[in-house]
């Protein structure tokens, strides 16, 4: 029997889900391995139980908490998909601002009608089995994970820095050129796609395990940022992890 697969979204732009519909060349081959039973962006049907569930977006309200618990109960394997689901993503920037101000900015005088929580990765609420990182999630990375799950293997985790992939490609180092690049502490798996075209890494894949944050802040201050600015750079996608 083919595994039943579902997709769900929480707080996010839904770009990671859409990204999958962009698998134009591979989509049919992918579908040959699984039964897609629930995917709001692509179909109407729903299901009660899932073998593999992909969850996009971050947890940011009490209703999210309730819903993710329900999804988790009905899922054998749960995969967090993309920066918001894995690290909290850019949504978590709200955590480092006064919450009342955030609510007022977004909802104005209706702010009391919408309960809110600090933005959190899925793993802050329920157990997450695997992750596909990036903003948006990287397609090659998703394919690796997908194939591993279909074969019952453990997917790769890329617990090393983007610098590694830059070196394999012999890209010119952007830090050496004076740009503010987060490659030294950001998780690889993206084939250093941004630095490869001269665009500094902004940390969308989250950080390597046990990141030396003080040392990274020092690297950035050496390049001319203040400590405050350096921390803000790290927080762009990772304010949940790099809380003040």
């Amino acid at each position: 029997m083919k595994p039943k697969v579902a997709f769900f979204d929480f707080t996010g732009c839904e770009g990671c889900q859409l990204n999958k519909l962009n698998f134009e060349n591979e989509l049919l081959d992918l579908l040959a391995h699984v039964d897609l039973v629930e995917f709001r962006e692509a179909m109407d049907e729903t299901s009660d139980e899932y073998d593999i569930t992909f969850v996009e977006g971050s947890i940011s309200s009490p209703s999210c908490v309730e819903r993710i618990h329900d999804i988790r109960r009905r899922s054998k394997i749960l995969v967090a998909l993309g920066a918001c689901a894995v690290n909290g993503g850019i949504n978590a920037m709200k955590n480092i601002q006064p919450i009342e101000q955030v609510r007022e900015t977004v909802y104005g005088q209706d702010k009391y009608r919408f309960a809110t929580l600090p933005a959190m990765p899925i793993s802050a609420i329920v157990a997450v089995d695997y992750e596909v990182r990036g903003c948006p999630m990287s397609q090659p990375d998703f394919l690796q994970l997908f194939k591993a799950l279909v074969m019952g293997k453990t997917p790769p985790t890329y617990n090393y820095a983007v610098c590694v992939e830059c070196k394999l490609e012999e890209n010119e180092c952007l830090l050496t050129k004076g740009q503010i690049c987060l490659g030294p502490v950001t998780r690889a798996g993206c084939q250093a796609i941004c630095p490869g075209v001269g665009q500094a890494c902004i940390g969308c894949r989250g950080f390597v395990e046990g990141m030396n944050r003080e040392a990274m802040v020092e690297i950035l201050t050496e390049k001319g940022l203040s400590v405050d600015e350096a921390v803000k750079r790290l927080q762009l996608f990772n304010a949940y992890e790099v809380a003040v």
Partner: protein
Amino acid sequence: MECYHLAQKAVPDLLEHLKKIAPVYAPHQKGEKSYSFERVTHASEVVLDYNRTMLSLKKFFLPPTERLLQYSIQKQNVVEEEIKPEKRIFFGVHSYDMQAVLRLDHNMIEGHPEPNYILRRQDAIFIGISFEPDDYHFSRSVGIRVEEMEGFDLFLNKVDTNYYLFILNKEGSDLLKGFQKLKAVKDIVRFERNFKNKLKYHYNRIPEVFQHVYHSEVWQKVAERCVGCGTCNLMCPTCYCFDVMDDVALDVKSGERRRQWDGCMLTPFAEVAGGENFRDKYEQRTRHRVYRKFKYITDQEGVPWCVGCGRCTAFCPAGISLTDIVNNLIQDYENQQYAKTGVVA
């Protein structure tokens, strides 16, 4: 050893001449401030006065990533990658990078010969060039002069604005057959190039230092600034560790096996089943890396496995200097000796 005059303006002619013999690889500008060895299409694009390329010649013999085999479960077969030996000319190589190839040869050929490396390496021709040591080079401290010619077939030593062209063996003289008439040098002017970056001890004394500094505080100090990105490993011309992984096709019935450079500064490197990590702290990793360069292999072979190219320092995002690490270890060693004996080491 024959030596001839070669005018700087004749170098493009020499490159054009060599291109007729075999593909030529030489330093090119890459990006704004960096260099890399690339195949020569236009001789005018070759940069002769470069400080160092990002990757060394290692990338040609042990590629950053390579396919080892393809397999198919349906056909029940495995097809190993076929590597055809190819004559390639590496032009404008600095002495430390040549020495690094000779050290890699030892690692890849002695004991367990590595066929892919040998096939890619065996027909290589090396043409060296002198360099002006910058703030990072310290090859003299590990016993490699700018003009060290071991391993080369030809060597260009810059004198003022022109070159001395040394012919070092038969392969070298064969390369010059049919090239313009060269004028022999009568009196070779020898001069020493100064290195600003130095180790405090002669390299002969360094293994002794490393017997006493395993528990030095230096490692912890380095770890405070290190982010564990692995740049020092991946750019090191004598690091050769790799990881092997399978890439399965979407049909999940066929695929390929690849290998890719790995590095001991990276978290997964010493991680084993169950999640244990033998070196989970940055200070342990730096220590291991530096011991690999100055102690473990050096004890067996008598020369440092660091060639003093300065890449690990020049490209370290945190500005960690290898010569500072070693010099601080020497200082630590001297302090220990003084405390023990009252004698300055």
